[in-house]
């Protein structure tokens, strides 16, 4: 079974994966896929996604092969789809990250093995969404009805676009907070409202007083045509300890990481900061995803 986009999943399937991740995290479930091999094909840099998938595979008793674009036949001009066709003969499941949007869907089209999207350009990052939903459920007890402030570069961050959809699926309240010009694309807002009837408030300044979850992402500098514009946005959008003075008791701060300067470092030690925990949840959630992909 492929996992390419959060749009491909029904709510019950998301719940199934989250419940499975919960059991794995608590030690009640130990997936065993001995003899199976995961291939990781990352055409863009990654720390958490790649390593947590490799860790998850090993915890599921699987082997791992890692494709490195810089030392591969891509340098000789081999196409992306040919590369995928070769790798499917070496593994039982593939995780692919690529800067071009739709590339992982194309990989799944040419590959008989399950393909999991590790992020395709500014489009989708469905496994991050599952980790985010799991993190909200773990830290707040539920997703339904939570007021989640999505803060930062909502235009370019694939994690935010996937998450907005996932939150709407669970009837959470979404408050989209971004500098002017980096708003959640209107097409996404309209789609979410039409499909799930959920409310999305739009703001251009930070005010976390009514937030249950503050989900922050960095300015996606690499997706800006003008680096000076990216720099200006980075300086303008930073969360400081003072901004949290009037926040609700029990506020949780999440971030897909890496964070650059959008969260003041003194916040890291506050009890509200759960982003390192969130990154660690990547392993049980991705164990559950591999288990789901191989079991279907």
């Amino acid at each position, binding site marked *: 079974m492929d996992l390419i*986009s959060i*749009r491909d999943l029904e709510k019950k399937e998301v719940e199934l994966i989250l419940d499975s991740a919960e059991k794995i995290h608590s030690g009640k479930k130990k997936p065993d896929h001995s003899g199976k091999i995961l291939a990781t094909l990352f055409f863009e840099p990654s720390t958490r996604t790649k390593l947590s998938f490799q860790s998850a595979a090993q915890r599921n008793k699987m082997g791992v092969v890692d494709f490195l674009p810089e030392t591969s036949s891509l340098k000789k001009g081999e*196409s*992306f*789809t040919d590369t995928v066709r070769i790798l499917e003969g070496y593994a039982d499941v593939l995780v692919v990250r690529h*800067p*071009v*949007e*739709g*590339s992982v*869907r*194309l990989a799944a*089209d040419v590959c008989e093995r399950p393909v999991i999207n590790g992020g*395709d*350009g*500014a*489009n*989708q990052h469905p496994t991050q969404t599952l980790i985010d939903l799991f993190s909200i459920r773990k830290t707040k007890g539920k997703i339904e009805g939570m007021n989640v402030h999505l803060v930062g570069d909502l235009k370019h961050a694939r994690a935010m676009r996937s998450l907005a959809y996932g939150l709407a699926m669970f009837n959470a309240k979404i408050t989209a907070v971004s500098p002017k010009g980096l708003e959640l694309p209107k*097409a996404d807002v309209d*789609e979410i409202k*039409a499909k799930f009837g959920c409310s999305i408030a739009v703001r251009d300044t930070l005010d976390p007083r009514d937030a249950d979850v503050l989900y922050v992402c960095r300015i996606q500098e690499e997706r800006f045509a003008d680096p000076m514009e990216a720099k200006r946005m980075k300086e303008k959008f930073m969360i400081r300890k003072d901004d949290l003075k009037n926040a609700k008791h029990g506020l949780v701060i999440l971030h897909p990481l890496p964070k650059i300067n959008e969260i003041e470092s003194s916040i890291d030690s506050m009890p509200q900061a759960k982003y390192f925990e969130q990154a660690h949840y990547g392993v049980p959630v991705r164990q559950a995803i591999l288990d789901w992909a191989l079991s279907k």
Partner: protein
Amino acid sequence: MLKVDVIENGTVVDHIKAGSGLKVFVMLGVAGGYSERAALVMNVPSKRLGKKDIVKIEGKTVSEDAASMIALLSPGASINIIENSKVAKKYVVSVPERLRGAGTCPNPNCITNREECVREFTKEGERFRCHYCERLVGAEELV
């Protein structure tokens, strides 16, 4: 009254939304280097549309895919297939629910503009979603 000769064998695309005729002309591949007679008539008075464009092409039959593309530009346009100077077939184009192998995703960072693959778009409301990059785009943007 502007007079354009009848064609013997070919296609007349009528009731094109005024202003879209040139795009239809280009899309059908008769804008440059076409050896047969072809005419684009713009802003012709029309009872139904007020104003319309018409395209006449000698020696070319519009395929089903091309008719779908015309529908994206101008829903309600009519295709007349001409054989021996008579209308052999006439139909009104309709916007398809799904486009496969036709249309171009306007997203320059979509894989369909980088690697060879069969393009696919699905209608959602008044717009189309690219099967690959998932971008929702207007019908005219696909042409």
